[in-house]
């Protein structure tokens, strides 16, 4: 689960990392007030940043610097009018703009190959790390944190010297790098990124100029499998940016992802569900969704999955593909029969059920006049054909539906 920059900064702050102050606002007048407070606290510039869960905010005009409260309000108004990669901007972060001397990249990710937390640092901060990885991979320094002890001091020092952050910033860098991994461990994050980690110029209490490290942006992805033990983090889920259908699927315990095609897919098993999508495409169709009903699914779950699929008006045909292992084919067949009896909209359906209790399923499906298929390839071809036919005749309402 991705969380917003402001929430990510809160998690960093909780581990004692240096994060400049910020406020989150939802309107231009609120942004103005927040900017006024920042100026009153000594800021000479403020930054207004769109809070959206997609990358490329800067390029899309979602980040602006303002020299006075009026400019901040105008910037907020402009940004709140944006859609960034299809996501309307609803929230803004407002805070003092840092006086940046130099930018670095620092990130911690869960690495599959080493099966360790890998910490990466680069002196080329402020740009996309994927870009650096392509153009100048040698500029990224990586090391594996200890699987049980986290990032050790010497490892953090090694990274600091590698990116040229020895000297006066060594101690702070060690604290930040260790704090990044601690943030990951404390919150079961997959990824914690600070980009840029910057040397910023500030004024000390005695008026003298000082330079210190600050985390100017933050990106955190949480491990969905671990959210059960972090109820406070689950609450950070940004429902504004989530499709209601996604939420419904999550509540039903169904893995569902909406796509742009016309052929709804209901499959048991994630790998088989992806394969079914791939075969629909290969047969000339476009899948409308990824849907894995999971292992051992029963009739009620089948019905719920059917509702999710039919909620998409673009769906003109449905392909059901079940390889019964734990899942019993006759249970699925019964679920399909029940679901069809009550569904609002009648769309052609091609059903393939093999494996456990496939024969009972076949009998049930035949008795209820379902179109069936034996092989996966055959099922995909039939579904694509049905969708094509439906597209020519237009959608039908279901005369059998009682609602």
């Amino acid at each position: 689960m991705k969380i917003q920059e402001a929430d990510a900064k809160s998690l960093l702050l909780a581990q004692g990392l240096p994060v400049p102050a910020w406020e989150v606002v939802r309107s231009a007048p609120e942004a103005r007030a927040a900017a006024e407070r920042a100026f009153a606290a000594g800021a000479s510039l403020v930054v207004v940043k769109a809070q959206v869960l997609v990358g490329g905010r800067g390029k899309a005009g979602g980040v602006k610097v303002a020299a006075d409260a009026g400019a901040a309000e105008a910037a907020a108004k402009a940004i709140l009018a944006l859609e960034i990669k299809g996501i309307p901007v609803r929230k803004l972060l407002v805070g003092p703009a840092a006086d940046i001397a130099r930018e670095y990249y620092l990130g911690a990710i869960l690495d599959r190959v080493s099966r360790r937390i890998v910490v990466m640092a680069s002196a080329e901060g402020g740009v996309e790390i994927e870009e650096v990885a392509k153009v100048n991979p040698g500029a990224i320094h990586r090391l594996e944190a200890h699987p049980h002890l986290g990032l050790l001091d010497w490892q953090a020092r090694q990274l600091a010297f590698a990116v040229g952050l020895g000297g006066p910033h060594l101690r702070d860098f060690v604290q930040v790098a260790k704090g990044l991994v601690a943030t990951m461990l404390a919150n079961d994050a997959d990824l914690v990124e600070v980009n840029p980690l910057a040397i910023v110029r500030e004024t000390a209490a005695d008026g003298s100029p000082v330079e210190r490290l600050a985390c100017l942006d933050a990106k955190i992805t949480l491990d969905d499998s671990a959210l059960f033990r972090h109820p406070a983090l689950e609450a950070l889920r940004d429902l504004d940016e989530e499709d209601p259908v996604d939420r419904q699927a999550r509540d039903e315990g169904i893995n569902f992802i909406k796509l742009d095609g016309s052929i709804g897919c209901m499959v048991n098993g994630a790998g088989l569900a992806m394969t079914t999508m791939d075969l629909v495409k290969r047969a000339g169709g476009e899948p409308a969704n990824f849907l894995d009903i999971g292992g051992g699914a029963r009739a009620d779950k089948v019905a719920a999955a059917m509702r999710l699929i039919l909620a998409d008006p673009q769906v003109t045909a449905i392909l059901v593909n079940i390889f019964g292992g734990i899942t019993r084919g006759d249970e699925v067949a019964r679920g399909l029969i029940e679901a069809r009896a009550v569904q609002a909209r009648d769309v052609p359906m091609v059903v393939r059920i093999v494996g456990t209790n496939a024969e009972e399923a076949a009998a049930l499906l035949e008795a209820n006049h379902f179109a069936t298929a034996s092989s996966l390839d055959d099922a995909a071809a039939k579904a694509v054909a049905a969708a094509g036919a439906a597209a020519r005749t237009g959608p039908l309402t279901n005369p059998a539906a009682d609602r």
Partner: protein
Amino acid sequence: MSILVGRETRLVVQGITGREGEFHSRAMLDYGTRIVAGVTPNKGGQQTLDGRVPVFDTVAEAVRETGANTSCIYVPAAGAPDAILEAAGAGIETIFCITEGIPALDMLRAVAVVQAAGARLIGPNCPGATSPGRAKVGIIPGSVHREGGAGVVSRSGTLTYEAVQAMTDAGIGQSTCVGIGGDPIIGTTFLDVLKLFAADPETDAIVLIGEIGGSAEEEAAAWAAEHLRGVPMAAFIAGRTAPEGRRMGHAGAIISGGSGTAADKIAALEAAGIRVAGSPTEIPAILRAAGYRA
């Protein structure tokens, strides 16, 4: 012979008295797997599965009393990492973890302990392994298999059954079929299993079934290019149509930052001389085209 499971497997099932554990243990017993013990804390001393399997409180006791050398874990996600550590601590050599939904950092910690103990973990979130005619451990339906010489390794569950069924239908039997699991942090990788197959005299062809996410398929392809030149191979990669940035069911199946795409993996496999099927049903034909005569 076979890899990971076979006639020498003496299985202890952790979580044997749970719904899943009991259901699949029965199927394993019916298949002929030698289940020597079950473990459920506080149920030690009972007998389960119609009196065929003794239950112990701890894995250590099960090992001591029955000589178990392999474990299969059906414990729910909150307790599964501890179950893995318990198996490793009790000297179990091969640990299958079927449980899905285990936090990745728990697995990271557990894998390090398992490695230090010199044990092998398969999974988590995996369907297990079957050596047809010998033993099956996990949840793969026994009916899809046929004895033979093709090794199968996969990140998926039902997709594997689909592929294996296609092979069986085409008369290509399997030496061992291994599901390594769909999570980002797993105990045994494609590469590990390829090495085991390469060393197994009875495995004479290999099928690799991957999916989007990570780079384990690429890593395996690179090794195969160097070490498996003479072995007939086929591959399948699920997720050609998967969108970026969305987790496709499996925690590990996600394209992020443009890496882990099906196209990358297919290119790597083809570059290693391994043909990639467009559908699981094409696997038998690819193996035959690669010279396999089973």
